[in-house]
């Protein structure tokens, strides 16, 4: 019997996570977070001398009574923000101890706990064979519990990831932040696909999850390697020199992914499936720019 994905300790740890989005998005029409520019908001920004054509309703009459000059109160623009967490559900995610799939589900729950709010919904999208499956909105702790239970009851990842991903996301005019959590090992231009989602109202951040057995496999002698997704078989005889070369090639692969993401304007973080949730969240906070 395998240990549960969300045991009490992890649930408690996830529930305690909370982050505030400090990045300013452009937008208008009111909402929960501060937007770029001035407009109809609730947060006072400054005064400006009244000029012809200004709205009388924003004249600061108290200031006129003290100084006898007409000034207009200006407020910060506010907007809404929603999060989408796309989880790679391909078979390659089942590797690692704990598996990349397990870590991905935990990290998705942690991100949901960090960013979900009444006016800031988080939706988990399962990218598996066929059209991506979009989960319910997570706005509070109850929704979070339901989401964790749903994630725990998922079957192990299997099959191959199918592109494109964007067709499965709801189309709204709101600002959105998309997190893609996966191993980036599937064939096809995944980074290009994710880059196509990026726009002035959509922030895309990628989390590349890799396992220790991928970084430094403990193999020796004659081995049979089977691709977990295509079932292709490879027979080879390994020696330490070849293993060192493999590690170099894998690191080069990671660097290539980062370089491609950077070229596409995406932020990509590499996280090991053995790392803790705090380490992963701190890495996101440090380098993601959402909370700074």
């Amino acid at each position, binding site marked *: 019997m395998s240990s549960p994905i969300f045991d009490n300790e992890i649930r408690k740890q996830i529930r305690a996570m909370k982050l505030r989005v400090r990045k300013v998005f452009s937008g208008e029409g009111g909402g929960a977070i501060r937007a770029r520019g001035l407009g109809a908001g609730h947060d006072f920004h400054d005064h400006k001398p009244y000029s012809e054509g200004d709205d009388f309703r924003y004249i600061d009459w108290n200031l006129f009574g003290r100084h006898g000059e007409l000034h207009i109160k200006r407020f910060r623009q506010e907007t809404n923000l929603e999060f989408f967490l796309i989880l790679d559900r391909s078979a390659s995610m089942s*590797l690692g101890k704990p598996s990349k799939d397990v870590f991905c589900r935990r990290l998705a729950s942690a991100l949901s706990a960090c960013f979900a709010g009444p006016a800031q919904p988080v939706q988990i999208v399962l990218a598996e064979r066929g059209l991506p499956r979009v989960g319910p909105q997570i706005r509070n702790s109850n929704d979070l519990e339901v989401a964790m239970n749903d994630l725990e009851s998922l079957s192990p990842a299997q099959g191959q990831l199918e592109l494109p991903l964007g067709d499965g996301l709801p189309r709204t005019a709101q600002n959105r932040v998309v997190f893609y959590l996966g191993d980036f090992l599937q064939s096809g231009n995944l980074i290009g696909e994710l880059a196509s989602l990026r726009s002035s109202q959509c922030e895309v951040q990628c989390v590349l999850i890799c396992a220790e057995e991928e970084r430094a*496999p403990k193999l020796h002698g*004659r*081995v049979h390697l089977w691709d977990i997704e295509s079932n292709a*078989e*490879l*027979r080879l005889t390994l020696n330490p020199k070849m293993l060192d070369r*493999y590690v170099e*090639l894998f690191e080069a692969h990671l660097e290539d992914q980062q370089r491609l993401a950077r070229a596409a304007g995406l932020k990509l973080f590499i996280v090991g499936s053995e790392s803790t949730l705090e380490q992963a969240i701190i890495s996101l906070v440090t380098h993601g720019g959402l909370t700074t």
Partner: protein
Amino acid sequence: MILINPQFLWLLLPFIALCWWRLRRTGELGRNVSTLAIWQQLLAEQGQGQTTALRIPWRLLLELLAGLLIILTIVNPAYVEEDPLLVLVDQSGSMGAPNRVAGAKLRVSELKKENRGSVDVVFLPPDKNGFPPHWTQLLSSADYRGRRTEIVSDFLAANVSLPPNVGFQVISDPVHNVGLVKARAVPATEGGISLFVAIARTTNEIGGKVEVQILVPGLPTPIHALTFEGGVSQYQQETVALSIPQDAQSLIIRLPQQDDLSFDNQMTLSRPHPARLVFSEPGRGSETWQAMWDAAAALRFDPIMAVNSTTTRSQFVLSVGMPTPSARGNLVMAATSLPKQVLMSPEATTRRSAKLNDLPGINDWLFQQRFQTPLPQGFQLLVSTQSGPVVVKEKATNTIFVAGDPIKSKWAERAFFPLMIRALLTELGFEGSGSTNAWQPHDPTSQPLESRLNETQASTSPQQACPATNPSSRAQPWGPWLGLITCLLLLALALDCLKQYR
């Protein structure tokens, strides 16, 4: 299929556990990876390895197969080849009754169905005394002593309730080549006997009625008279039931003396022993054959068959089942123009002799020879031999022994015997052909009948021939072959291991 060492079947339990454990470790035989492209790139740099699209754990399968073969080798299954069941079909006179013939055929068919192995059938014609033939000698010559045997017989010949020392005599004029009278004693259901009397004619020239009288010595008048209408048919027969006085010692069957009617032999029906009704024909050996012929007629087989149809006016090719290579004798052939009508003219009769041992390439069942003798169109060839015993083997499954007296009569239809037996075998579902053998029956008067009966029953009784353990079964164990295959498999696996860890 039997297991020679079934006590080692418990090895299957740990083997199943081993299979379960190995199957659980199947995933550990290889490693699932997600970075196969990187490994392939690494291989491309190193210049080794190969990729395939299939994922079949051949090594695991071979290991499990080797384990199973090891267990099978220890258990040592064997194929039990049972000796063929020998069925002795009594063809003595009393078996000629239609219901008994049908019963015999049904019983043979049942035995053939019940025994999936081969079934050998021996048709036992009566000897010249009406006995079933000397079974012990026949079985001994066929190396069948002590094997499974089933007897299909009415056993009436040994139990007919006749007064002791009753003899029958058939008296006729010794004019040859005209006709034959024959009498057979058939036990009647209500005491006494029934006489089966037949008169054979071969020409139309004999007309009028022929009266056959049956006399009891000492009585002035016949106790019965049979009237045969003259005509062109070959046989006329009539079955009569007679009540024989208890004190009668013999019966006389008398045919009237006529100039144009004669008989080729004189048959004496005698019963020298209370337990046996005997046909006695000291001078000739044809009575046995004739009884067989009548039995065949009772079986309703048409004895007219062509052995080979590749006959032209200039030559013909003869193919016929023949004796074993050890048999010596002459091949007797006769030609007929029409079914059931024998032409004995010199122009239509061909006799050839061939020493079978001198023929190159002869096998034990097929004889083929080309003859340049012209035959009239439409003639059918009749073939038989004068030697034996004949053991005809077909496909090593059904071995058919057909016994009969040597053909010595000039009656050409007697040569139909092999063909008749072939038809009989075909109907019973066997393959093969028949011929006569050279068995020489003992003179029943030359030895005590009790000893003969005891010898016969002792050698052929089903109880003795079928011991409980059935020692005649031959087991052919597969263990050596399985062991050899296992060794080869283990050797291949060992070489593979050496190659892997070198």
